[in-house]
């Protein structure tokens, strides 16, 4: 049986993670572009739709505040899933070959990439949290900040793994775009991010209840605004299970990567 050298695997993990960070910081357009979209949603959609929604009808918060957790989730979805796209580009510029020929376990390579992508997303979320506190009246205390970060990290890991899984299997960025439409949009729109779940017709309620992302939205709303439909305990259970499942799927797909 081959020996598993933990310290060298960790060093390799660090190297792969570090490369993602370096690449991310060298393309500031990525960061800026990633922030603009959620901000636009919050400002335009939040203000626009918020003007026709009666204050208090969305469980006691104004609409922009109600929307805020959903915006965080949307940011995670977009940044993490598109991170998987970069695997395809890696294949094309063939940097991936250099990683694959290194003496590391495939799982280590996967975790390095997943953590790298998650760190990118986390940076975006932190910036949004700061902006939310300054401009949109979102109140944070120490506990809610910590819990928010934990919830976000769980979702980041889950969706980054999913994105990597898709990226490992697909061959071209064009095909990837198609999958993203069929994955990101349903996950987001059917998660209760934009509207409260309680007043929905039965068929929609069922879909939202099956969607694991709904629980992240609910958890964030619970922690930031004090409103919850499912309860934090159920939320955390689903989030952890979702993350674990996606990591397993992602590792499986990554091991089958075809150059």
């Amino acid at each position, binding site marked *: 049986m081959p020996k598993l050298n933990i310290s060298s695997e960790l*060093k390799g993990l660090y190297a792969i993670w570090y490369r993602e960070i370096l690449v991310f910081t060298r393309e500031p357009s990525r960061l800026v572009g990633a922030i603009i979209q959620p901000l636009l949603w919050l400002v335009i959609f939040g203000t626009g739709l918020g003007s026709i929604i009666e204050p208090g009808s969305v469980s006691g918060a104004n609409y922009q505040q109600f929307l805020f957790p959903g915006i965080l989730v949307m940011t995670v979805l977009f940044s993490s899933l598109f991170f998987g796209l970069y695997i395809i580009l890696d294949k094309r510029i063939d940097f991936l070959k*250099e990683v694959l020929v*290194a003496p590391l376990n495939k799982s280590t390579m996967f975790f390095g990439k997943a953590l790298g992508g998650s760190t990118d997303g986390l940076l975006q979320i932190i910036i949004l949290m700061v902006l939310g506190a300054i401009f949109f009246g979102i109140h944070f205390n120490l506990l809610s900040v910590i819990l928010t970060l934990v919830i976000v990290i769980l979702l980041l890991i889950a969706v980054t793994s999913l994105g990597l899984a898709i990226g490992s299997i697909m061959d071209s960025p064009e095909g990837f775009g198609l999958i993203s439409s069929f994955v990101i949009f349903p996950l987001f729109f059917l998660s209760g991010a934009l509207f409260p779940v309680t007043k929905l017709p039965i068929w929609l309620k069922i879909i939202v209840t099956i969607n694991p992302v709904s629980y992240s939205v609910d958890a964030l709303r619970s922690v930031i605004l004090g409103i919850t439909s499912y309860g934090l305990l159920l939320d955390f259970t689903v989030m952890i299970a979702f993350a674990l499942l996606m990591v397993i799927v992602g590792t499986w797909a990554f091991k089958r990567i075809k150059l």
Partner: protein
Amino acid sequence: MPLIEIKNLTKKFDDFTAVDSLSFEINEGEIFGLLGPNGAGKTTTLSMLATLLPPTGGDALINGFDVAKHPTQVRRSIGFVFQDPSSDDLLTGRENLYLHALMYGVKPAEIKKKIDEGLKLVDLTDKQNIRMRKYSGGMRRRLELARGFLHSPKILFLDEPTLGLDPQTRENLWVYIKKLSTENKITIILTTHYMEEADKLCDRIAIIDHGKVIALDTPGNFKKSLGGDLVTIKTKNPELDELKHMDYVKQVQFKDGLLNLTVIDAGLHLQKILEKVGKAENVELHSPTLHDVFIKLTGRQMREDSEEGEGGWMTRSVHSGNK
């Protein structure tokens, strides 16, 4: 004990057999060449040895480790320089080397020293902090060569190391490769379709075509096997029987108006030969090269001028504007 043992190594892609039951051994300290035209199966073979591609059949032992059973150990023993660029454009040369050192577990105390040495060997010390996006093709190949042996592997795989480079850069790369072998004592396997490269660098060469090893020997023996100099004469009616009876004429081939002779000491005997040929439109004479060996073994020319590398399944790079 040979450092690399390959037995019946085979790779099939659906119906197509890219590598057909290869068997040979490579000894420590050698520079070993896989010489063959595009599509012969060289890159595929190398990829299997580097555990990038699972074999369909057969075994390969690299430094005592089986490529199928202990791939991580195999990868620890080797370095690989790819045919297509495989470094990160957004990072500097030095950063690419640093990441490599981390992934291969180079001891932290030695990382700086090894990077500096590597850069020095390939003359990139003053370019190390420039982003690789700005490197020329030759510079990139040199950096990747330095990266390949950064972790002091026992074996270095070079896949078409001078493909697409200008003559000056090729010469420089050959010097670096020779240095790696003699000074750093690394065993090197390279694939190439350039005869001159195989002749200049390799201690032994395996000539590969259609996924099979056709012949394996030292360049010197290969050329000797031809038995003499080659004389090619463009003519219509040579006296073939007379030529065949001459002592110093070892081989006679006449086809489509071209007379190919293998002659011992052709320069000395050319006059007598021409007397038996009659009207000659063109005469060429040269000492045997690997190209002649290849023609003799396969009956056809090997096109050297082609710029494209082989290994279609691997070459998926679309070179968008940032190269």
